[in-house]
């Protein structure tokens, strides 16, 4: 039974508050041998660009203490192939599909918003926080004005709910969140990965082909939780929390901090049935706490008193 886990996000009905994070769940099909579809609230597909992108050369992954660095570099087949070949296939899943859109310049985001507007996807997630591309992307997400401008450009081209994905590589995440809210964002999601690095002490070379990469996994959870809490207090639009969530208790922490839904990324690699295990754990938690709905947890962290 899922009744207690149902939620709603910017007009999208979710069977559970558990979303598969962009770039960690392919196009949604790769994990279907492991995850119960009814436990998945939504799937955010791999970051999409206007043209196909090969991604970065050299090594793209390095394990770090309780985490991992990646520098995939937005490898994707481009929006045309997505619309023609991939979307018709994954639409059959009866799970809301959210497309993560990326660009080098503001027009790229507007182009993608228009291309996807009538495609039948549930929402767009505007990635202004990818640390792994040379141009654009994260550059938009670290300055309130450009973050707002990209948001407005996307909103102007689509009627779909627009989620803006925020970067943790900023001094004041709440300021960026407020800027995109004012520009019309329907929700924000955070955090994307933290820029990190690893060096091979035998060769004295960076481990990653791209020198730096994005840190994810349990190692980033306390930082992510703090940023979700700060953001939830600063905006009225819903917040999707993520960063290192591996268990039901991690998910509860993010809900208490103010996230209306949470996304699961790196944990899928470690435990391919992570989302189902977390859904099961959340149902048990509601029962133990004698709560009817997950919404009774959102933002209820007890501070003071």
């Amino acid at each position, binding site marked *: 039974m899922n009744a207690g886990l149902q939620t709603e996000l910017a007009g999208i009905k979710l069977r559970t508050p558990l979303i598969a994070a962009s*770039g*960690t*769940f*392919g196009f949604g099909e*790769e*994990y279907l*041998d*492991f995850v119960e579809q009814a436990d998945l609230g939504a799937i955010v597909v*791999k970051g999409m660009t206007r043209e196909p992108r*090969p*991604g970065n050369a050299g*090594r*793209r*992954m*390095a*394990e770090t*203490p*309780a*985490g*991992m660095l*990646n520098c*995939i570099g937005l*490898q994707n087949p481009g929006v045309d192939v997505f619309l023609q070949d991939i979307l018709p296939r994954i639409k059959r899943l009866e799970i809301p599909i959210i497309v993560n859109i990326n660009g080098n310049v503001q027009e790229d985001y507007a182009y993608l918003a228009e291309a996807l507007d009538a495609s039948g996807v549930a929402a767009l997630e505007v990635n202004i926080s990818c640390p792994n591309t040379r141009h654009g992307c994260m550059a938009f997400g670290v300055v309130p004005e450009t973050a707002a401008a990209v948001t407005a450009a996307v909103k102007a081209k689509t009627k779909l709910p627009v989620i803006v994905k925020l970067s943790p590589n900023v001094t004041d995440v709440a300021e960026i969140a407020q800027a995109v809210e004012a520009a019309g964002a329907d929700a924000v999601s955070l955090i994307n990965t933290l820029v990190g690095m690893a060096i091979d002490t035998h060769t004295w070379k960076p481990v990653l082909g791209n020198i730096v990469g994005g840190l994810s*996994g*349990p190692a980033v959870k306390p930082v992510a939780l703090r940023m979700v809490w700060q953001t939830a207090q600063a905006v009225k639009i819903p917040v999707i929390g993520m960063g290192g969530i*591996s268990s039901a208790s991690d998910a509860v922490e993010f809900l208490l901090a103010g996230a209306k839904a949470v996304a699961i990324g*790196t944990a*899928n*690699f*470690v*435990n*391919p*049935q992570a989302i189902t295990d977390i859904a099961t754990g959340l149902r048990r938690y509601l029962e133990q706490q004698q709560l009817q709905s997950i919404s009774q947890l959102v933002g209820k962290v007890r501070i003071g008193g």
Partner: protein
Amino acid sequence: MEQKSKFVEQALILSNQALSSDVYRMVVQSPQIAHDSLPGQFVMIRLSDKLDPLLRRPLSIAGADPQKGTLTLIYRVIGRGTQQMAAAQTGASLDVMGPLGRGFDLSASRLLLVGGGIGLAPLLFVAERCCPRPVEVLAGGRTKDELFWTELFRDSCQSIHVTTDDGSLGVCGTCADALPALLANGRYEGVLTCGPRPMMKQVAALAKAAGIRTQVSMEEHMACGVGACLACTCGAADGGSRQVCKDGPVFWAEEVDWS
């Protein structure tokens, strides 16, 4: 719902023995995965439910017995994950995810298996599955410390050719040094190779010159093992790319961009 093709099993460790100073052989009870495994496929293993080390480790399937429900893994101790694996006791359990990837095409009737070092692990499963069809193996190692491979292949291979880097056993040199003579004498219809990339590249070139097609088993750093993270991309000869975990790890040599 389509039938599941990949599983996660908490596999009972039946044995875990040292074969040399740093290579171990582990047999686990993993009935679902053992039932479906094909030579060339791999598993992703996790040793504990701790969050560090975090990620699963890819290991080739070195043998699978669908009747007994057992899976054999042969691994070299490299870092923290394989150290923990070597320390695992019989009776403990190993979290195994698989079978993953695309294995070898075994339709050619006379196969030559060319393996460098730990790359012989998936080829052992090939030899077992092909038996009693005639299969030959060319095994390359560093020193005679790796003699155990000849023992492992003895039951399933018609002839075993050995090279060592230091000449302490068999021909002195690498597999690629010993290959031309074998290709000149044998009547192989296919070459299957796994080992260091430069070795596989040379093997494929030599086999091609002799008019024989080669299948190679590629290696890349992996996070997910199922095509979801795009960490394991390798360049393809058609200018595109492939995921080693999902489209491979076995490819026809001519599919790969070797540059």
